Structure formats: structure tokens, C-alpha cells
């Protein structure tokens, strides 16, 4: 539970720290373990009763371990009149669990919520953060199948949210693109990184919005790496820190103008594209 202590220390003193802390703990462990809440109580000086009250107030927080994939079926008014209860029943029949439960193989957790805010698109099912709209019972097997395959895998050919960017070093302006290494059908971005005792190359997918990487050394989850330009060996380090986790942001110049920044923490998905910006 040392990770919990780190999470707490990172946010201590912030406004509304408790919810941020609980969210991060849940992101790490998939639920809020009792020991973690005790650590939070100890370090923040809040009573366990208050923390437990917050943890049970919000439906997003879970006190039971969740499965690998989270399916949330909206039962809000708009979804309800469009047949959401049938969708929820069908999901629970096909998964063999009731709402709020996890399948025995640990794959799926089924939950219901009272409104997910997409009322015009109902009935809505959210799988691992991906919204499926106008869901019919006949679409459920496909949703389950796709969720199992992994919805975060981006299909570069069909997904319009992804587009390739060409970047160069903010210091020497040498292109960081490596035509010799392909990731997802595009030339990859090659940088050098170091963390702990390791030092080696890292390939990043050049598709904006994709998180595919290849690295010489396996980077542990949550590790913050230092990024270097492979040409001028300058450290790629921006003035700002990641808004989500506080790690340094890594800036790279986009060809055609602008700056793209990615978070240096493994597993953190913060990134930022500013087509008018420059490296400060």
C-alpha cells in the first residue's frame, strides 16, 4: 500500500483532495481497498467515517474489486423510456451476473447508473469509458466481444480521431521520426529515455491519440522516465507538469507549427496538442 501513500502525498492540501485521491486509488487498484482508505484517513487526518461516506456516496467508487472490463448500463429517465431496463436485463443474462456483480472469471463487471449524460443517445451502454449509443439487445454480443478484445486499441485506418503527426526535437529541431521503424503502419517517433538504472530507445506511435509504444527495456507502470533527443542528447522537458498526475510533460515540435506534449509517466494518458504554441 506504499503507492497509496504516494498518491495521498501528491494531492495533500489541494482543494477537493479527497475525491482526487480516491479516484487515483481506484484507477490503480480498480476499487477502493479497505486498507487504502485507512491509509488515506491516517495521512489526510480525516476520519474514516467521512471517507467511507464519500466512497459510498458516489456510484463511481467501488468497494469491491472490479473485473478487467467495466460495463455500465444507463437507467436514467431518457434511457429508461427507450428500453434501457431490457438492455440491462439482457446484459445481466448474457454475463450471468446481476448489476453490481463481477463475472466469476473476472472479465466483466456490470453496473447500472442513473444518468450518464447522453440522454439524446439512449439507451446507452458504456464499456471501459467508450459510449455505445442507441443500443439494441441484438447489439449486446458485439459490444461484449469488442470490449473483450480491448476498446482502447485504436484502429488507425477507420478511426477519424487519430491522425499522424510528425515531430522534431525542441532543441535542435532534428526530426524525431524514424522511417525505419513502423508502428501502426506509420513511421514511429524515436526518442531515448532513461529511468532507474535503464537507458535505451523508445518508439512512440506517431498517431495522435494512440498509446502504442515499443521500448528497449520494459517500463514499469507509474514510472516517470526522462526523455532525450537521440540526436542532440538534450533532455526533452517542458516548463509545465502534467495536469493529471504531476509528472513533467515532454514537448516536441510539430511539423507545420505547434507543439505536442505528452506526459512522461508510464500509464498516464495526458497529452496536449497546441498548434499555435511554441516551446517555452
Amino acid at each position, binding site marked *: 500500500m506504499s503507492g497509496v501513500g504516494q498518491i495521498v502525498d501528491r494531492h495533500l492540501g489541494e482543494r477537493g483532495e479527497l475525491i482526487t485521491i480516491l479516484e487515483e486509488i481506484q484507477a490503480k487498484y480498480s476499487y477502493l481497498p479497505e486498507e487504502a482508505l485507512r491509509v488515506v484517513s491516517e495521512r489526510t487526518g480525516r*476520519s*474514516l*467515517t*467521512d*471517507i*467511507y461516506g464519500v466512497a*459510498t*456516496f458516489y*456510484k463511481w467508487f467501488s*468497494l469491491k474489486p472490479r473485473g478487467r472490463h467495466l460495463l455500465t448500463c444507463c437507467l436514467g429517465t431518457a434511457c429508461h423510456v427507450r428500453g434501457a431496463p431490457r438492455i440491462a436485463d439482457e446484459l445481466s443474462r448474457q454475463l450471468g451476473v446481476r448489476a453490481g456483480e463481477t463475472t466469476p472469471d473476472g472479465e466483466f463487471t456490470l453496473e447500472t447508473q442513473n444518468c450518464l449524460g447522453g440522454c439524446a443517445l439512449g439507451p446507452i451502454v458504456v464499456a471501459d469509458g467508450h459510449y455505445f449509443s442507441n443500443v439494441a439487445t441484438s447489439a449486446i454480443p458485439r459490444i461484449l466481444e469488442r470490449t473483450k478484445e480491448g476498446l482502447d486499441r485504436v484502429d488507425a485506418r477507420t478511426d477519424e480521431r487519430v491522425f499522424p503527426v510528425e515531430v522534431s526535437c525542441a532543441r535542435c529541431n532534428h526530426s524525431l521520426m524514424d522511417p525505419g521503424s513502423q508502428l501502426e503502419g506509420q513511421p514511429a517517433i524515436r526518442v531515448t529515455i532513461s529511468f532507474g538504472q535503464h537507458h535505451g530507445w523508445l518508439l512512440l506511435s506517431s498517431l495522435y491519440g494512440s498509446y502504442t509504444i515499443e521500448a528497449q527495456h520494459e517500463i514499469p507502470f507509474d514510472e516517470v522516465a526522462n526523455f532525450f533527443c537521440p540526436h542532440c542528447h538534450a533532455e526533452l522537458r517542458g516548463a509545465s507538469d502534467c495536469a493529471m498526475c504531476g509528472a513533467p510533460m515532454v514537448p516536441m515540435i510539430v511539423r507545420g507549427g505547434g507543439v505536442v506534449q505528452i506526459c512522461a509517466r508510464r500509464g498516464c494518458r495526458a497529452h496536449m496538442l497546441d498548434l499555435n504554441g511554441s516551446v517555452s
Partner: protein
Amino acid sequence: MINLTLNGLPVEVEPGTTLLEAATFLGFPIPTLCHMEGLSPYGACRLCVVEIGEGPRAKLVSSCTYRAEQGLKVRTSSARVVRARRMVIELLLASCPQSKTIQDLASAHGVRQQRFRQEHEDCIMCGRCVRMCEEQMMAKAIGFQGRGEHRRIGTPFDKRSEVCRLCGGCISVCPACQLRCTYSDPDKVICGGCANLAPPCLEKPGFDDLMCYMKPCVACEISK
């Protein structure tokens, strides 16, 4: 000093006085349930509603949480207030009919029936016990959990809390569960069964710091 009109009577109160305190001090009784001297105002039961303002802009507010304002016109028992109070009592009766406190309130306000689906809750969410535990007992062992209709009072993870001293303060202030805890007040006794137990923890170490409110100490008896 703040000048306001209470039931047509011009009165003067200290700044920061709540309407409930002002009215009680000046002899206009306002029924209360979640309010308790020594605990912070909470405004949960809505029994202490009073009408403020005039004409079409008059509105109902809970007097235990509303501070006196300069020139405020307050009516503590207008027809609208009385109707609202009766409705509150009727709803309380619908959820918690066994409570002696609520039965007494119903009788005092002429509520003879309740028209809602009868439930038999053991809690009306007045928060007295939670505030007692936190503010007077400095323990914070119990608190509200969940939300909406799943809201309830309990200890974290429904386990025996390490900070609970079994003082019984929560039970002694509860207006809903008096079957268990009013034996020392003969007028309110319903069953009196608990009166036959003798307090067993006087000889126990640490009794002086316990601040025990339980008479007799049923919890000590159970945990033995």
C-alpha cells in the same frame, strides 16, 4: 442588535441568533425533532418551519438554520406553517410509526391518520446521533453512507469501529429508537425491559474516560 417582527410583535435579538432560538426565547414554541441544544443546527426534519416575508413572496424556511435578519417578518404558526408541519409529521409517521417522539408530535398537532404507504424504518435520518458522536463525543465513529434511498447510518465497512467507545450517546439522542433507551424517563417508557439490567462496566478500567450515556450499558453487556 437586530430588529425583526415575530408574529406581529416587534422584537430585538442578538446578531447570529437563529429564528428558532429567538422564537423559543420569546415564548413562541416551535416543535423540533432534529434540533438539539449542544449540537450544530442541521435542518433535516423540517418540523421547525416558519414563514418569512409577506404576501406572495412569503416562504417557508427551517427556523433552526435561519439566522435573524434586520426587518424580517416571521410567523411561527400561520395556516401555511401548520399545514406544512402536519404534512411533515404525517410523512414521519409513514416511515417510523413506532417512535414515541413522533407519536407524541402527531397527537400534539392533531394528526390522526397518515395517508401514505406504511413503512417501518428504524431511522428518520435526522442526524442527531452522527452529530452527537462527532461534536459531543469527539469520536466520529458513525456517519452517513450511501445516497438517496440507500442512505443510512453506520460505521465504516459495517465493522466495529476502533474509535467507538460504546458510550451510547447515539442511542440516547435517537428520537426513533426509544423502545430501547428511555427507561430513565418514566413518562416515555414503552416496554421498560432494559431497566432490569444493572450497569456492569463501573468496575471496568477506563470507565472514567468513557463518557457513557447508556443506562444501563447494554452494549457492554452484549460484548462480554
